[in-house]
């Protein structure tokens, strides 16, 4: 039996924020005449301590069981007043707020209009609050482990932090080795540390950490469940090499019949690898992998008389019969650290990247200047006619960034500095070369950035403001056509080498990850964080966090910082061992549900399933909500033809009277 509603209405002056354009006394007098309203008061600041005390006192003295606060937006103070009435012994969900400030007093100047509208908003709240129900928040156990997707520097760092805190981590990497983009870099700006030197120890750590289960050459296939209880399915792709037997000696690759025939992904295609390969010498795990498309035996079914790698492998690790393996486990939190793709320079055809071998990208430059790169760090440039050591070098910045024509309006944040760094490295290697950088702006905002930029300029690297319009060939030179916009001089600059400072783009395969975890994209197409300021590592999916460039372009320190942030956020449910699930979830009236499954189809969280129940001896299917997964959006409800699924606190029977009050009352 539900008790008769006894409503208290509290109209806030908010100083003069409300009372200047709303006659709050009139509103309170009006409210007192509405059905079931026992008390109606005004107060200068309802959210203040005395204001709250006023409400609590009335709850006790008048036996109120419903409270309406007519004040600011519920987005502002709903939690405050929920807490207040809870302290007075009421269920916190017996509260309704009438937004008479943001959506009334602040936007209307006429006091009659403001007062009339406030009355209606209060009446609508009365109509609804009478029918609200008490709700209880529930807690469920959380699995004390985490999944980290992507083992670049962000994933590695997040995994190490969580593992160090004592929780189990599943670190899943798509490629055969951890390390990601950072492993490809030569030096890092602005400090010029050797990228490999600072990264490799961490790579080794995450492979050897007792709390980390490294799943390299693996992909996440499916994630179900919810915060605290994600159910994960990972596909470990077949390496065709027995992981335990392989010693990483490399005899197989040396003997491979198609030795060094295939472009090395790690060297941006500038170096070559065999069909069986280790991506790079410091790869972790140091286990060889056969590329099934390149391998003669796997792709054609025949490799001479017998595959030579198998003959060469003394431990007998080669296993052509290996198949993909599915690993399943549960985790309490997920960190997405899937990184980025460098901008594909061929999408700016005017720069001739696809046409001229001496137009290269910044990533290629990284491999070229690296001592472990395809040229051993020597700057040998193939011009089409022959190999030269460039004398005239041009860098072009903002290629694929801040460029609406390719759909990327954002700044990639790292290009200014990596171009400066590469100019500096080039200057070291080619003391006599003429180096210039074409730029739109130089954004040297980070710690030590401006100083580094100054230093590079002092090293006789010329910065010319202009955005080249075209690159073409003239004789054995490349011509960069550009206007120096500071002097308004058109230039046709003849160079030997053009380095395109390509920006960062969301990964090609990010849609897969989005669908796995039901993440959203921001307008720049990177993953959307829950709040740009206050929840930058959270996502709208609870228990899923973002780290690194998958959320937006970042340099290494920012990436590491965000990874550590994500790790610490992810550890909250793991450390608590419990997660709170929302009370405002959908609920099904099984007696009217017709089991059509519309809601199952609609729910973006897979929170609803059809279950078979026994209705007086008949087996029927009805929908059932997993309250832990439900976010209470209510899309299911609006799509339910029999009105059987309803979000608590936003039920049709609570909203329809609100509509009536707003429509009918004058």
């Amino acid at each position, binding site marked *: 039996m539900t008790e008769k509603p006894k409503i208290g209405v509290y109209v806030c002056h908010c100083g003069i924020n409300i009372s200047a354009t709303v006659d709050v006394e009139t509103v309170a007098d009006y409210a007192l005449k509405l059905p079931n309203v026992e008390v109606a008061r005004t107060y200068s600041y309802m959210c203040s301590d005395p204001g709250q005390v006023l409400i609590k006192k009335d709850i006790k003295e008048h036996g109120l069981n419903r409270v309406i606060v007519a004040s600011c937006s519920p987005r502002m103070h709903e939690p405050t007043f929920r807490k207040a009435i809870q302290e007075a012994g009421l269920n916190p969900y017996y509260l309704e707020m009438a937004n008479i400030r943001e959506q009334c007093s602040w936007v209307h100047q006429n006091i009659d209009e403001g007062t009339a509208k406030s009355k209606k908003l209060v009446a609508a709240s009365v109509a609804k609050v009478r029918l609200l129900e008490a709700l209880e928040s529930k807690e469920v156990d959380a699995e004390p482990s985490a999944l980290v997707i992507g083992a670049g520097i962000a994933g590695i760092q997040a995994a190490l932090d969580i593992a160090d805190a004592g929780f189990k981590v599943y670190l899943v990497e798509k490629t055969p080795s951890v390390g990601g983009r950072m492993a490809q870099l030569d030096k890092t700006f602005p400090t010029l540390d050797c990228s490999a030197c600072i990264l490799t120890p961490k790579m080794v750590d995450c492979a050897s950490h007792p709390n980390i289960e490294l799943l390299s050459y693996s992909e996440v296939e499916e994630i179900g469940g919810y915060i605290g209880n994600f159910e994960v399915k990972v596909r470990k792709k077949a390496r065709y090499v027995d992981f335990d037997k392989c010693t990483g000696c490399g005899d197989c690759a040396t003997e491979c019949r198609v030795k060094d025939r295939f472009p090395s992904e790690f060297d941006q295609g500038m170096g070559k690898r065999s069909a069986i390969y280790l991506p790079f010498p410091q790869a972790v795990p140091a286990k060889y992998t056969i590329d099934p498309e390149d391998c003669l035996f796997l792709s054609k079914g025949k490799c001479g008389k017998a595959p030579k790698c198998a003959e060469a492998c003394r431990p007998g690790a080669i296993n052509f019969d290996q198949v993909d393996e599915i690993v399943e486990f549960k985790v309490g939190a997920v960190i997405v650290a899937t990184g980025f793709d460098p901008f594909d320079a061929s999408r700016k055809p005017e720069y001739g990247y696809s046409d001229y071998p001496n137009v290269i990208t910044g990533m290629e430059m990284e491999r070229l200047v690296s001592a472990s790169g395809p040229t051993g760090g020597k700057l040998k440039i193939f011009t089409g006619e022959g190999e030269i050591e460039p004398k005239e070098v041009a860098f072009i910045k903002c290629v694929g960034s801040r460029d609406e024509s390719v759909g990327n309006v954002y700044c990639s944040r790292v290009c200014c500095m990596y171009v400066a760094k590469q100019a500096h490295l080039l200057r070291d290697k080619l003391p006599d070369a003429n180096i210039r950088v074409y730029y739109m702006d130089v954004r040297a905002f980070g710690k030590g950035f401006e100083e580094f930029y100054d230093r590079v300029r002092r090293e006789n690297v010329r910065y010319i403001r202009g955005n080249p319009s075209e690159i073409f060939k003239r004789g054995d030179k490349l011509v960069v056509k550009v206007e120096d916009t500071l002097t308004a001089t058109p230039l046709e600059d003849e160079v030997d080498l053009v380095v395109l400072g390509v920006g960062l783009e969301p990964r090609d395969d990010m849609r897969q990850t989005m669908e796995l975890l039901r993440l959203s994209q921001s307008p720049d197409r990177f993953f959307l964080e829950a709040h740009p300021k206050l929840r930058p590592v959270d996502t709208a999916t609870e228990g899923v966090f973002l780290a690194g460039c998958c959320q937006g372009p970042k340099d290494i320190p920012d990436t590491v910082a965000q990874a550590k942030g994500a790790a610490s956020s992810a550890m909250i449910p793991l450390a608590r061992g419990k997660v709170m699930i929302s009370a405002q979830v959908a609920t099904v009236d099984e007696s009217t549900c017709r089991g059509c499954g519309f809601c199952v189809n609609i729910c973006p969280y897979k929170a609803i399933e059809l279950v078979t129940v026994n209705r007086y001896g008949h087996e029927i299917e009805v929908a059932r909500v997993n309250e832990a997964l439900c976010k209470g*959006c209510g899309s299911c409800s*609006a799509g339910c033809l029999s009105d059987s699924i309803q979000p608590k606190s*936003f039920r049709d029977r609570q909203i329809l009277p609100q*509509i009536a009050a707003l429509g009918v009352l004058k």
Partner: protein
Amino acid sequence: MSENYEPNIVAFLCNWCSYAGADLAGTSRVQYPANIQVIRVMCSGRVNPLYVMNALQQGADGVLVSGCHPGDCHYMEGNFYARRRLGMLKDLMEFVGVDPRRFHMSWVSASEGNKWKEVVEKTVEDAREAGPFEGFRRRQIDW
């Protein structure tokens, strides 16, 4: 039509974008007509299209539903469902003789306080032009 007819508008706003956008309009002291009264729902996907019909039946002269821009939905897809459902409803209502100026739908993000004002002005103006709703209002029938 009465000289001083003021249309009565009921609006359904999603909590995350449009309601926040309307709040922002308030914080920015943007001024707009007082004819509009908002019912907050968590997502535009929550808006049962029959609410629109119900609001007209119960005395509204115009109805507005507003949600996040496509792709921005806090619940990922709710606004897509809302768009399909309410698009259908609009066609249906128009076919049975409800002036299309009485129902609008908009995308207003949390940062679009000014767009909210424009949307309100357009909704109120259209409802004003359409005049008091005399279709199937409940009040007119033998109460």
